[in-house]
C-alpha cells in the first residue's frame, strides 16, 4: 500500500504513517507464522494418532496397497468415463427442466394455478425424498412394471433418478434468481410495450441465469459425485468398477483410487466456480466499493 502511494510525486509517508505500516507488517508476519505452525502441529498430531492406532498396519494393507491401486486404475478410469458422460447429459437435461419448473413456479394469475401448483408439489416431493430412495424406486420399480419398449438400462434409469431429484434443487436456485431481478426491470420492459412473456424471456431470465451461475456450478460439483450413486443399480461406473476389483483382490484400495479420481474430477470444477464467481463479483462483491475491503 505504502509503495503504491510513494509513487505519487513528492510525497513521503509521515513518521506516524511509517509506524502504523510497521505495526501492520509485524502483525501480518505474526499471523502467517501462527497459521504455518498450527497447520504443522495439527497435521502431525492427526498423522501420529492414526499411525499409532493398534489396527493401523492392517488398515494400511487393506486400503493403501500400491500394487492393487495400480492394478485397479485402468478399470476404475474406464468406469469414471461413464460418470463423466452421465454428468454431461444429466446436467444439460436438469438445466432446462429446472428452468421450466422455476418459470412455472413464478407464473402469476389464476389461469396458471394448476401449473404453479404442480411445479410446487414436484419441488416439495423431490427435494424431500432422499436421492438413494428415488434411485431404488426408479431403478427397480420402473423395470418391474414391464412396460413394453421401456428401457431397463441402469445407466438411463439411474440418470433419470438423478435428473428428477436435482431438477427440484436447481429449480429453486433459478427461482431465487428470477425473484432477485428487480420489478422495475419488468416495469421498464412492459412500458415499452413488451408482453409479459417477452419481458420474462428477454429481460428477466437472462439476468436471473447470470446471477445464479455460481450456485449452479456448485450443484454441478455435487452432481459429479452423486453420479456415482448409479452404481447401486449395477451400472459399471467408477465406484462399481472399484467394488469389482475390491472383491477380486480382497482389498479396499480401489475405493481410495476411485475417491482420488473423483477429487481430480471436481477440483477443476471447483476452481472454475471460484474463478467465475470472482469475475462476476460474487465473492467479495463489496471489495470494490470504497472502504469495503479495508474494514477491520
Amino acid at each position, binding site marked *: 500500500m505504502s509503495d503504491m502511494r510513494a509513487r505519487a510525486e513528492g510525497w513521503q509517508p509521515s513518521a506516524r504513517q511509517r509506524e502504523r505500516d510497521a505495526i501492520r507488517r509485524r502483525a501480518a508476519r505474526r499471523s502467517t507464522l501462527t497459521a504455518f505452525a498450527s497447520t504443522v502441529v495439527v497435521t502431525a498430531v492427526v498423522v501420529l494418532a492414526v499411525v499409532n492406532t493398534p489396527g493401523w498396519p492392517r488398515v494400511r494393507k487393506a486400503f493403501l496397497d500400491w500394487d492393487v491401486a495400480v492394478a485397479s486404475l485402468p478399470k476404475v478410469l474406464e468406469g469414471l468415463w461413464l460418470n463423466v458422460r452421465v454428468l454431461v447429459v444429466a446436467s444439460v437435461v436438469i438445466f432446462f427442466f429446472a428452468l421450466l419448473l422455476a418459470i412455472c413456479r413464478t407464473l402469476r394469475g389464476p389461469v396458471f394455478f394448476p401449473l404453479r401448483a404442480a411445479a410446487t408439489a414436484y419441488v416439495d416431493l423431490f427435494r424431500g425424498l432422499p436421492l438413494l430412495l428415488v434411485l431404488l424406486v426408479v431403478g427397480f420399480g420402473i423395470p418391474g412394471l414391464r412396460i413394453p419398449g421401456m428401457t431397463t438400462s441402469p445407466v438411463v434409469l439411474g440418470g433419470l433418478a438423478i435428473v428428477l431429484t436435482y431438477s427440484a434443487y436447481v429449480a429453486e436456485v433459478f427461482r431465487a434468481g428470477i425473484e432477485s431481478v428487480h420489478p*422495475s*426491470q419488468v*416495469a*421498464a*420492459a*412492459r*412500458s*415499452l*410495450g*413488451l*408482453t409479459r412473456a*417477452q419481458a420474462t424471456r*428477454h*429481460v428477466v431470465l*437472462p*439476468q436471473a441465469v*447470470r446471477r445464479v451461475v455460481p450456485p449452479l456450478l456448485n450443484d454441478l460439483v455435487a452432481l459429479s459425485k452423486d453420479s456415482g450413486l448409479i452404481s447401486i443399480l449395477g451400472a459399471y461406473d467408477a465406484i462399481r468398477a472399484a467394488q469389482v476389483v475390491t472383491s477380486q483382490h480382497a482389498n479396499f484400495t480401489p475405493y481410495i483410487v476411485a475417491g482420488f479420481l473423483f477429487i481430480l474430477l471436481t477440483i477443476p470444477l471447483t476452481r472454475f466456480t471460484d474463478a467465475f464467481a470472482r469475475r462476476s463479483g460474487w465473492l467479495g462483491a463489496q471489495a470494490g466499493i470504497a472502504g469495503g475491503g479495508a474494514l477491520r
Partner: protein
Amino acid sequence: MISADDGAPLLRVRGVRKAFGDNVVLDGIDLDVRAHQVIALIGASGSGKSTLLRTINLLEEGDDGDIWLDGQDICDPRVDANAVRARMGMVFQSYNLFGHLRVLENVALAQRLVHKVARPEAEAKALAMLERVGLADKARSFPDELSGGQQQRVAVARALVNDPPLILADEPTGNLDTTSGIAIMTILDELCKAGKTILVASHDPRMLNYATHRVYLMDGKMVDESKYLESISITS
C-alpha cells in the same frame, strides 16, 4: 389545468382512483394533456405522482375512473395494453436500463420485439436515437459503465424509439447532479419543440421553467397552486 387550446386533449384523465389496501393514493384525478404541452406534475413524496404515471401507462390497474389516449378508452380491459404502452414512452427516476444488454440493444429491444423490426434496421434507428441524446459513442457500452446522467439519456432514447406522441417521465432528474439534470431537461425541451407531449413528475424547480403548464397533486387530489404553496409554507 384545462388549457384553452382547441381540439380534444391527447390524454384525458377523469376521476381516476387507486388505493393500495387502506391507503388511497389517487382520489379522483382529473387531468387534460393537450398535444405539444409540457406539464409538470408537482407534489410531495407520496402524493401519488408516480402512481398516476404508472396508472396512465397501465403498469397499475386503477380502481375507478377513465383514461382516454387520443380518444381511445384505454381502461377498457379488452384494449391491448401492450399496444397502448408502445404509444407512450416512460422514463423512470432510477433509469431501469437492462443491465445485461448493451446500450444499443437496450434502445433497439422494443423495436425488435414489439414492432418486429429486423435487427439491423432496429439498431440503425436506435443509433439515431442515441445520436439525438449525444451518446452514439456509448452504443457498445453496458449501462453500468455509464454515469447516472448518461444512463438517463439512454433511458430517454429507449423511451423514444417507438416514436410515441406522449412521454411520461417520473422524476427523471431526481437522481442526477445539476449538470446531468440540465442535460435531461434540455433534451425534453427539444422533444417538446419537435412535437412531443410530455407529462413529467418532478421536484426540480428548474424543471418548472421548462414546463408550459403546472399541476399540483396533494394527498391524491389535484389542488390549485395557491393551496399547494400554502401547504408547503405550513409544513416548512
